């Protein structure tokens, strides 16, 4: 079960014509798909569209009622491949994944799909992970749309526009026989708002209808000579059809006065940022009514040159607001103006930065710079004068405020794996270690600093392939259960088996696709009503021919973890050494167990709740335990004792009693400061009686000693 449940919210998906839908972007997208009569949906989780997958999963019942097939695809490639159903059949299909990394994975299928062309509308909803809050390399999915010739929608980031673009996307796809990408940025996915709902629509032609009436047409198969014809079809037919549709249905929008000396061309997703900058410059009102004409590209690919020229009419300068690089749109518009022999100055990346997110300040500075140059008379007087306002001098906090990158959660079962690995490295020296995508990549950060690269989802062990031949010290690679099933089984494990890799592979199995929000995967242990879970990773690994496999069922057992790592690094075995380290993601486990536990306590049943603590007078404040942990609940406190120079370790009430502290203190022979306190709720009669006897006996002994010596007490 996913981290966040939308079970309540998805009920809103049932509302119909005349009602107002309010909620988050991802819910609006789902509602729009249902209104558009989608026949099948799928995708692969990953921020910022993880929650869209969660919404779809939670809405499965509603989808099924409508005759819509929902598939939790194994990867983005699998999701994109599913769109094949729209090649021959008049069925609308939509899949979702993150961009650009998900698009990278999907690109093989997307390229084939684009070449074949589609009959039913095919929509790829991409959560573009660019800018603050992103967890991946900074790139643009735009290039993929261009190279495969898929149309790219980038709607204004408000719910009505996003919903409308879903409808338009399907229509555009069908009008031009071309799959369409619908791009939503990090914040648009979770932006809240409302829109006028329509009735949900059953797909006129369902996937079941298709199975009853199968079709095929070899003209759609990507094989010569049809592939050559498809390439020409793209240019000769699909492209003009798309442009015609875009113009006729006014997919792009123009705002502001018709006549003005300057104008701004922008991606739809930039609209709110541009308006805010204009509002701050006194050139737009609260509703976005602007004095500067705007040409909003809700379709950023293909561009419609005639529409653009029309916008440029009567203007001396135009600014292109396009986030990220390369500046595909600006280049295309520039070349169009040049070829058409237009005399107008085109600005863009000369006013705005080439790289990075267009934040509020960046946008304000860029647009102000453009207007200062192109139409200074438009700016209020105060902005025309340099340095009109003085800012108070602030103390420099850059050396004070620490960076706070993401890290392992409290009680994370991956922490002890990396604590063991760090101790192993302390014993045997530094090793070549490759990381993978997933929570476990946090191990590359302090305090562990384990793993120096990540090459893609499920590719950790594959990225150590150059070292497969072995050497003085074995290479180690990490892969998570998510990456393992995404493509790691073949690309990483199969590859290692076939090439007789000498390396050690650690599979971090936390029972979920945890980093993306706890979605179930093949090896999840939970029962899932509509998906097949419970397929052990160790079985799969053996199945592809790994002979040396070790399964650990409690990662918190640090000494055992260390012992197995040691064995893997020293065994004579030829071929890959695979360690499957399994324990449940603590976030999910707590979410599952906490309510049950509280209920049991309330009902008077016996429940044990563990928590760790530190004896502050035994801790010497060297923080060695923290360097093997980094747990948020293991922190420091300063004692009110003049003899102490350094803060001592301290565990706060958020501790879930995972055991890592005790295990590490023991395995690394750190110190005896830690203790575990298990609170026994509702103890039985015998336990109570024994407990009371023991505590009285202990108290007697304690008093006896106190009486014989001098002690210092609080008064």
């Amino acid at each position, binding site marked *: 079960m996913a981290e966040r449940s939308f079970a309540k919210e998805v009920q809103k998906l049932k509302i119909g014509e005349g009602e107002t839908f309010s909620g988050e972007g991802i819910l609006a997208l789902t509602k729009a798909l249902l209104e558009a009569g989608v026949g099948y949906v799928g995708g692969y989780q990953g921020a910022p569209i993880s929650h869209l997958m969660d919404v779809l999963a939670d809405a499965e019942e509603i989808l099924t009622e409508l005759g819509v097939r929902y598939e939790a695809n194994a990867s983005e490639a699998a999701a994109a491949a599913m769109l094949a159903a729209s090649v021959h059949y008049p069925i609308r299909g939509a899949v979702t994944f993150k961009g650009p990394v998900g698009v990278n994975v999907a690109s093989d299928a997307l390229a084939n799909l684009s070449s074949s062309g589609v009959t039913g509308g095919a929509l790829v909803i991409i959560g573009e992970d660019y800018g603050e809050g992103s*967890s991946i390399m900074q790139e643009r999915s735009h290039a993929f749309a261009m190279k495969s010739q898929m149309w790219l929608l980038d709607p204004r980031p408000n719910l009505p526009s996003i919903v409308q673009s879903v409808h338009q996307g399907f229509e555009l796809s069908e009008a031009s026989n071309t799959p369409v990408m619908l791009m939503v940025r990090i914040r648009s996915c979770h*932006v809240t708002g409302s829109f006028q709902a329509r009735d949900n629509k059953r797909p006129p032609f369902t996937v079941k209808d298709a199975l009853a009436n199968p079709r095929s047409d070899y003209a759609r198969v990507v094989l010569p000579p049809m592939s050559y014809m498809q390439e020409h079809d793209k240019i000769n037919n699909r492209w003009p059809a798309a442009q015609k549709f875009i113009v006729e249905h006014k997919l792009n929008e123009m705002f502001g006065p018709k006549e003005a000396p300057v104008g701004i061309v922008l991606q739809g997703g930039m609209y709110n940022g541009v308006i805010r900058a204009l509002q701050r410059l006194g050139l737009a009102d609260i509703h976005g009514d602007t004095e500067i004409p705007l040409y909003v590209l809700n379709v950023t690919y293909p561009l419609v040159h005639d529409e653009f020229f029309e916008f440029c009419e009567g203007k001396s300068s135009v600014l292109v607001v396009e986030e990220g690089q390369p500046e595909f749109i600006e280049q295309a518009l520039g070349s169009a103006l040049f070829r058409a022999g237009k005399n107008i100055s085109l600005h863009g990346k000369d006013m705005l930065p080439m790289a990075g997110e267009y934040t509020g300040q960046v946008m304000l500075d860029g647009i102000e710079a453009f207007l200062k140059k192109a139409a200074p008379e438009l700016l209020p007087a105060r902005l025309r004068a340099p340095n009109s306002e003085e800012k108070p001098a602030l103390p420099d906090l850059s050396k004070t405020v620490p960076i706070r990158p993401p890290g392992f959660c409290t009680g994370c079962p991956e922490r002890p794996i990396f604590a063991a690995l760090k101790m192993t490295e302390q014993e045997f020296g530094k090793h070549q270690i490759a990381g993978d995508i997933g929570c476990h990549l946090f191990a590359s950060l302090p305090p562990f600093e384990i793993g120096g690269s990540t090459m893609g989802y499920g590719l950790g062990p594959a990225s150590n392939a150059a070292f497969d031949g072995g050497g003085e010290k074995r290479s180690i690679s990490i892969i998570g259960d998510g990456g393992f099933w995404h493509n790691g089984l073949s690309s990483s494990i199969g590859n290692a088996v076939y090439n007789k890799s000498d390396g050690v592979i650690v599979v971090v199995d936390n029972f979920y696709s945890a980093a993306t929000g706890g979605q179930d995967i093949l090896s999840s242990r939970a029962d899932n009503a509509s998906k097949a879970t419970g397929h052990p990773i160790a079985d799969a690994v053996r199945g592809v021919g790994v002979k040396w496999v070790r399964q650990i069922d409690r990662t918190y057992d640090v000494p055992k973890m260390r012992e197995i790592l040691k064995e893997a690094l020293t065994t004579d075995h030829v071929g890959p050494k695979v360690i499957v380290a399994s324990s449940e993601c603590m976030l999910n486990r707590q979410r599952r167990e906490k309510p049950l536990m509280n209920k049991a306590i309330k009902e008077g049943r016996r429940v044990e709740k563990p928590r760790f603590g530190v004896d502050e007078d035994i801790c010497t404040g060297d923080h060695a335990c923290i360097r093997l942990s980094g747990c948020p609940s293991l922190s420091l406190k300063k004692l009110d004792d003049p003899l102490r120079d350094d803060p001592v370790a301290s565990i706060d009430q958020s501790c879930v009693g995972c055991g890592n502290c005790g295990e590490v203190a023991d395995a690394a022979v*750190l110190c005896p400061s830690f203790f575990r306190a298990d609170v026994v709720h509702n103890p039985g009669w015998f336990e109570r009686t024994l407990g009371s006897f023991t505590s009285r006996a202990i108290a007697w002994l304690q008093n006896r000693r106190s009486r014989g010596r001098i002690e*210092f007490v609080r008064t």
Partner: protein
Amino acid sequence: MASKTQTALQSKAHDPALDQIIKLAIMAVGGQGGGVLTNWIEDCAHRNGYVVQATSVAGVAQRTGATIYYMEMAPAQERAPVFSLLPAAGDVDILVAAEMMEAGRAIMRGFVTPDRTTLIASSHRALAVSEKTVPGDGIADSEEVIAAAEIAAQRFIAFDMEKMAVDAGSMISASLFGALAGSGALPFERESFEAAIKASGRGVEASLRAFAAGFEAAAGGKIERPQAGQAKLPAANAPAGPKHLVEQWSKLEARAAAMPEAARDMALTGLRAVVDFQDLDYGAEYLDRLEQVLAQDDPAKGHELTREAAKYIAKAMAYDDVFRVADLKTRGSRFARVRTEIAPAKGAQMKLTEFMHPRAEEIVGMMPSGLGRRLSNSQGSMRLIDRLFNKGRRLRTDRLLPFAQLYVLGGLRKYRRGTLRHAIEKEHMEAWLDKAMTYRKIDYALGVETLRNRRLVKGYSDTHARGLSKFDRVMDGVALLAGRDDAAHWCRLLREAALADEKGDQLEGALKTVRSFAGQAETVLQN
């Protein structure tokens, strides 16, 4: 053509409706419930007839990392307003920081400005990993953030909302919400805030309690300094025990109280520590040592030497050995402290597990010094002892037998003076003290700094060994420096470098620098 159109265009008059937009950013640490807070605020604004737009970043970037939620709201009108999805520097009305350094981050990013921003910050600290891993004290200074906040914010409200929430059995999101309501920064009535909590339907009672606490404190416009440590308790200073011992104690106490004022409190603290560690005789030994130092101190220097000696001799004498740990673990006062910290519900019982891992070194350390030294010099014996004893031991001190084991061990402290560990510690302490007093003769400040180097020796087993090695390396560096004007300054730098990282890389760098100038100087002197 352009000139014709230019006249048709004018800079628009500022839209007063724009001033009605309230821009609110929440800076939090992943896992603090920022999403819940955002939902409450959004609901509350809706109840007051506002249109709201909220955005957040979900996903892996949020796990325990710094994260930001942003919302804008304005009174609803016929036409929808256009809101920004991102906060902009200089354009935030209310900044809610769920932790002190996140408030600092907000200030650094320009989200807090004197013309408009109400800054509502929880003064507690959730330490970042980089602050915690430093072997010394790496905790960032909240005072600097507070100083900046007082300049940067139009209004600044800060108090410990985390503690408030915990006390109410809730999450910080609830006390933050209360503080937001109490600050009056949003033009909404208290009831509408509470209605939002009630409508959310989970943990409502506890949330309302935390909300109320936050509301009251913020309505009072509170600015509370973050507390460095735990809540201040009266110090455990009062002697308790059999009459004859208390009488003897009084004599020792009088000796310590006779120390010069600058060193008096420290001497008393140190005396209590060593008496607590061993016995009254040990306390007398401590005072003997301290009085020797005092005899060589310089009153003109404010008795700094004696004060530092009072602190570090006590620490050196009250070292951490097996008896000490066993004694501390089995004390009644410790049991009471654990009980307060864990706070088991009424009727609940508590099991207590200790994590011990004795090595051969600890075992021979408990032996009489002669035997212990012989054994520790024989690799074979040490290996055998390791095989017998070196393993993790988990002791359930809530059970009688395991408790008794530790209790007996704690009682063996009577024989401590004869043990190998004691001999080693004493030797080390005397060598260090000698060195410090030797330096004191040529350079008072260096003598003081040398005493302070004792801070480097701490921890158990490997960590203790690493601390000792750092101590030795610093002392070697100091040996090169002795006699120079800046020796004390460099001694302090070396010590700070040693505390900055685990392996001592920074110390190595600092030593290199010292060698580069002091080493040469030494050769020059020799020539």
